C-alpha cells in the first residue's frame, strides 16, 4: 500500500514542478499550415482584382507562349457543387463585376477524352475590358479573358467536385512580397510548368 502512495506523490510533485523544467517544442511537421488560396494570397491577382464567385480550387497557374507568339497566363482550377452552366455563368459574372464584358454568346463544343474516352461538353466565353471593345487590329489584347469550363469525367451531380475551368489571362506580374508567393504549394505555379495530364480534362483546352 505504501509504494503506490509514494509513487503517486512523487508523480504529483514532478507534475507540479514540471512548468519549471521548460516547455516541449512540438514540430507540427505532420500538420503543415494550409497555404492560402492562389487567388487569395495577393501574389498574382486576376485582371481588375476579380474575385471568383464560386467554390473553386486553383490546380495550376503559369505563363505559356501561344502559337501566335504572345505570352498568356493559363490558370487551371476545379469547381465544386455547381454544374458547368452555372460555373460558367458565375465565372463570367465575376469578371463582369470588375468591368469586363462578354464578347458574343457562350460557345459550346464537344471535347472527347477523359480517362475513359467519355465525351464531355466544353463551354467557353470570351470577355474584354472596357477600352478594348472598339479597338481595331493591332490594339493591345492584354485585357482579353477567355473562360473554358468542362465537367470532370466520372463526376455526377452527387459528386462534390464537378468540373474544371481554364482561364486564359493576360500575363500578371508578381504583386506582393509575401513569402507565400515563393511557395508553389500556395501559388500553384509549379516549376515544371503545370500538372501532368493536360490543362483541361477532355484535352480541348
Amino acid at each position: 500500500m505504501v509504494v503506490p502512495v509514494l509513487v503517486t506523490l512523487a508523480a504529483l510533485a514532478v507534475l507540479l514542478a514540471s512548468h519549471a523544467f521548460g516547455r516541449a517544442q512540438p514540430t507540427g511537421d505532420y500538420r503543415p499550415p494550409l497555404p492560402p488560396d492562389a487567388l487569395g494570397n495577393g501574389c498574382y491577382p486576376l485582371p481588375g482584382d476579380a474575385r471568383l464567385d464560386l467554390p473553386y480550387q486553383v490546380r495550376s497557374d503559369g505563363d505559356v507562349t501561344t502559337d501566335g507568339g504572345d505570352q498568356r497566363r493559363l490558370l487551371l482550377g476545379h469547381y465544386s457543387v455547381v454544374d458547368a452552366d452555372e460555373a460558367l455563368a458565375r465565372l463570367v459574372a465575376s469578371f463582369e463585376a470588375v468591368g469586363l464584358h462578354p464578347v458574343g454568346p457562350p460557345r459550346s463544343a464537344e471535347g472527347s477524352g477523359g480517362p475513359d474516352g467519355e465525351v464531355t461538353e466544353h463551354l467557353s466565353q470570351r470577355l474584354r475590358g472596357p477600352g478594348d471593345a472598339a479597338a481595331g487590329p493591332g490594339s493591345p489584347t492584354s485585357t482579353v479573358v477567355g473562360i473554358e469550363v468542362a465537367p470532370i469525367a466520372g463526376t455526377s451531380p452527387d459528386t462534390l467536385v464537378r468540373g474544371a475551368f481554364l482561364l486564359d489571362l493576360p500575363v500578371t506580374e508578381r504583386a506582393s512580397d509575401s513569402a507565400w508567393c515563393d511557395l508553389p504549394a500556395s501559388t500553384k505555379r509549379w516549376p515544371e510548368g503545370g500538372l501532368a495530364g493536360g490543362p483541361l480534362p477532355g484535352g480541348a483546352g
Partner: protein
Amino acid sequence: MRRSPLAAVDRVAVRLDRARADGRLPRPDVLLGWLVAAHVLLKLLVLPLVIGAPPYNDEQAYVDGGRALSNLLRDVFAFTAPDTAELERNVVGSGWFMPGMAVVLAPLFVVVPEAPDWLIRVYLGGVSLAVLLLAVRAVRRRLGPWYAVLLVAFPGLVPGWVVLSFTAYGDPLAGLLLAVLVAHVIAMLRGFRAGVSPGVAEGLQLGLLAIAVLYLRSSASTAVVAMGLVVLATSMVLVRGRQRWRAAGVLALAAVVFAVLLAPWSWFASRTLDDRVVTTTTVPVSLANTFGEDPGFGRMEEGPPDELCFGPCDPDSTPWFAPLRYARELGRAADVSEVEAQQAMSDYSLQDLTTTQYARQVLQNVGAYLLIPGNFAFHIEPAGGHGLVGTAGQVLVAGATYLVYAPVLLLMLAAMVTVPRRSLEAQVLDVVVKLAIGALLVQPFVHVSGSRYWTTAGPLFAIAAVGFLLERAARRQDVVLEAPPRASSPYDARLSRWTLWTQRALAGATVTVAVAVLVLAV
C-alpha cells in the same frame, strides 16, 4: 503418417511434448527467467544500431503528440489554460493516428522537455520492456507459465521486433496488449464454462485492455470488436439464470469503461476536424492510395494515384500529404470538412476499381504484412546511415529475424486451416486466437501494409503456431479426444458444438478468401 510432409514438424512436436511430459525441460519459470535475460541482452545488442536514429516517418507525429501532451499536463498542473492550437495540431493533426503512443511518450517530455533523440529511443526501449514484462505476468496468470515463456520467446527474441520496440510506433505494444486481451477473454470463457459470471474487476480489465489496444493501434479495432463479440456471445450462450444477468452487467461495465475512455479522443478529434471522428480518419484516403488507379508499391514512392485529387495531386508532396492538402483546400472552398472531402475524393478515385486490381493489391499488402518482418532494421538508423559494422549489424538483424519468424509464420498458416480436437480448452484458445488473427488480417484488404504491421499480430502467431505443434504431437501419440470432445458439463457440450462449428467456418473462410484473392488476381 511417416511420409507426410509434416513428418519433420511432427518429430519436433512429439520430442518437445515428451521432453515436457518427462520433465526433461527446465521448469517453465526457470526457463522464463533465462528467456527474459536473453531478451534484455538482445535489446542491449540492438540498442547501438538504433540509438542514433532520428524519428522515422510517422514516429515524428507520435513524438510531437507526446510533446504537446506533456505541455498539456504542465499547463494543467500550473493552473494555466492549455495551448489548444498546439494540441490540435500535434495530437490530433489530421486525425491519422490514435494518441496512444503520444500518451506513452508524454511522461518523458514532462521530465525532460527537450529530450534528445537518443533519450527518446532509450525511454521507448524501457517502456516496451516494462510492457512486455507486465504482459508476461498477465498471460502467466491467465494461461499458465508455458504461454508466458512463449510470449518472451516470440516476439521477444525476434531481432526485428526488438528494433521496433525502440520506436514510437504503437504496433508492438498493441500486439502485447492484444495477447493479454486474448488471454483475458480465455480466462473469462473458463468461468462461463463453469456457468459463473465474471467479476467486476474482470469486466474493468476487459474494458481497459480493449481501449488500450485501440489507443495504441486503431487498425486493431477489428480484433478488439471480435473479442468483445466472443465474450458477449459465449456469456449469453453458456451462462444461465441470475448469473447471466450478472454477466450482462459486467460486460456492460466493460463497454462503459471502453466508451468513457474513448470519448475524450473522439470528442477532441471531431471538434478539431469539424466532423464525426470516432478513432481515425485514414480509411478513405488510404483505400484510394492503396487501390486507386494504377496502384502499386513503386508508385507509393512517386505520388498518389492519378485520380485521387479529381486529377493529379500537387506534384510537390507525398502520397499522404498531397491528397490531404487537396482535401483541406476543397473543404475550404466548398465549405465542408476535410474528412468529408477525403471521402468524396476516395469515392471518385475508386469508382473504376476492378476486382483484379483490388485482388492484386491485396496480395501485395498481405505480402508486406507477413513477409518482410525485419525491414525496420534498415529504416531506424542515424541520419546518413551506418558505417560498415552498423550495416553488417542491420543485415544480421534482418536475416536473424527471418530465421526466427519464418517457421512461426508457416506453422501459424497451417494452424489457420486446421481444426484442433485434442481438448475443449485447446479448441477454445484456438478459436479465439484465430478470430483475433483473422480480424487483424482484415487490414491488408483496406490499407496499404508495411513491414511493422505483423508485430500487432505477432504474439498471436506464436500461440497459433504452438497450438498446431501440440495438435500434431497429440495426433501422433493417439491421444486425440474423440470428436466432439467429451463434455464434462452441459455447458461444455454446448460450447463444444459452438467451437467446432466456428473452427470449421474459420478454416473454410480462410481457404475461401485465400483462393478467391488468388484467382481474382490472376
